[in-house]
C-alpha cells in the first residue's frame, strides 16, 4: 500500500504561516492510454486530498487525470494550536490512504 510522505514543520510559532508538502505514490493512470499490446488502460487516479487540522478542514483538492503520477501537492496553513494534521487521499477503485503529522505550536 502506498505510504504517503508528509512534511510539516515539527515546531512553529503561533500565527506563523507554515508550508505543508505531501507526496503519495500512485500511477494516476489517465484512462486515455493503451498498453503496448493495445489493451485499453482504464482510469485509475486519486480524485481527492483532504487535510484536517485538529478536526477542522483546512484544505481540499479535487484531482483530475492531468495531475502527474505520484501526486505532489504543497500548500499552506496558519499554525494556530498544537495538535495533529490528518491527510486523506481517496480515488478510483476504492483507493484510500491516510497520513498524519504532529505539530507543536509555541508562543
Amino acid at each position: 500500500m502506498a505510504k504517503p510522505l508528509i512534511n510539516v514543520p515539527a515546531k512553529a510559532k503561533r500565527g506563523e504561516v507554515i508550508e505543508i508538502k505531501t507526496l503519495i505514490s500512485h500511477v494516476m493512470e489517465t484512462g486515455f492510454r493503451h498498453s503496448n499490446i493495445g489493451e485499453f488502460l482504464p482510469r485509475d487516479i486519486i480524485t481527492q486530498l483532504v487535510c484536517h487540522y485538529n478536526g477542522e478542514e483546512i484544505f481540499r483538492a479535487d484531482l483530475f487525470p492531468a495531475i502527474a503520477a505520484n501526486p505532489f501537492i504543497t500548500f499552506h496553513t496558519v499554525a494556530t494550536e498544537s495538535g495533529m494534521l490528518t491527510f486523506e487521499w481517496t480515488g478510483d477503485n476504492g483507493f484510500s490512504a491516510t497520513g498524519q503529522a504532529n505539530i507543536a505550536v509555541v508562543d
Partner: protein
Amino acid sequence: MDQSRRELLTGAAAFAGGLLLVSARPADATPASMQAAIRNMLGDVEIGKGKVSLDIAPLVENGNAVPMTVAVESPMTATNYVKAIHVFNEKNPKPNVISIHLGPRAGKASISTRIRLADSQRVVAIAQMNDGSVWSDEVNVIVTLAACVEGL
C-alpha cells in the same frame, strides 16, 4: 457586363478575405471545451485579469510532470480570502487540471503541484474570492515531449 464582372471580382475577394479571417481565428481562440469547463465550474461570472500568478516554465521538456505554482494576492483574513483555485488547460483530453478549496486558515493562498501536458498549450489559473469576484492568469507553455503519447 463589365460592371458585373468587377462586382463579381470584388465580391470574390471580399469572400476570400472573410474566409481567411475565419480560418485564422481558431488558432488563438480558446478551445470551446476549456471555456465550457470554466463556465461549468464558475457559472456566468466576469473573470478579471490580475491578482493571480501562475508560475510554470514556458518551455517544458517533459510533459509528464510539469511543476506548477499558483499564488493569489489576498490577505487571507476571515472577511477577505480566496475560496477556490481552479486550473484549466486547453489541449489535454480533459480541460480540468485541479480544483483547490481553501479557507481563511490557509494563511497564504499559494499551492504547487506537478501536472501533465499533452501538447503545447495555454494553461489558465482562476481564483474565486469569498466576495464572489473571479481573477485569472494564463501562461503559454511549449512542450517538447508530450504526456499521454508514450505507451508503457
